């Protein structure tokens, strides 16, 4: 779940130009193998948390409204857990 939150927040924070974030950037922030990231990205796109923007050579990813909502809820519970001195 932490990895999903990291990928979604990277897709949100690094999308400064509004044309999505590449896999390389997500890999750098997510700290995982390419095959694992590809699988995770297809799952996140499938569940509607990420939007896939297909380019000529590579795909880029953008966080969806559902993804933003998920992150909001995730951070609320992370904050709640941290109040008790716990990590999610």
């Amino acid at each position, binding site marked *: *779940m932490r990895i999903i939150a990291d990928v979604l927040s990277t897709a*949100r924070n690094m999308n400064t130009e509004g044309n999505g974030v590449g896999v390389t950037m997500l890999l750098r922030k997510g700290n995982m193998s390419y095959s694992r990231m590809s699988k995770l990205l297809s799952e996140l796109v499938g569940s509607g948390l990420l939007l896939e923007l297909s380019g000529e050579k590579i795909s880029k990813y953008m966080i969806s409204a559902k993804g*933003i*909502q998920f*992150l*909001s*809820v*995730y*951070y*609320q*519970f*992370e*904050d*709640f*857990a*941290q*109040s*008790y*001195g*716990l*990590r*999610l």
Partner: protein
Amino acid sequence: MALPTGMAMIEDVLQFIGFFVSFSIAYVAYRGVRQTHSSSLLRLTTAFIFLGLGFAVEGFVGLDQVIPALPLTTMAVVAGLFLETVGYFFLAFSHAIDVMISKKMGAALLIFPVISLSGTQLIDILSILSFYFVLYGVVETVYSYARTRRPDTLLIAVGLALIGIGTFVQWLSLLYLNVDVLSLLQIIMKEIGLLILFTPVLGFAVRVRPDGTV
């Protein structure tokens, strides 16, 4: 532990408030489990469910002093304290990173009632075990505060410390049965501690983050 009726009634009301507060925290933590699948929040949920059940059983046991027709059995007192102790165990070990240790201690706690001890001895042991579990929780929460420097984490440590002192006073109340006020004092201290533990739930309810930022 026979208290004057007025004091017994106050203690009983406080026990049921404890039940309500515990289940409110457990409910929010459970929502967190469903959303994030977090094992830490699962342990927190379990802790407050047991604590809530413990408060409820102790509240019902205490009703016999308000309504004399209800029978008070030592085993009911032990059951309430046992539930509370299990709650404190999960609360303390919500912090534990080494899950194997908590599993072993959990198993030890489960076989604990099998050992043939008298009801009074069981009550003594459960009270002192609760004290140690809460003490562990306080140490871990203070350690967490040192890492994160979050004021609300420090507040939770204070709340746990009050509960810890409450469980110690509870143990003292078992030793000095003639001092009526100890029994009331322990539940007041636990209750204040529990209300402090309730503050993140209040913060959770009013917090608004429409853009998903921390």
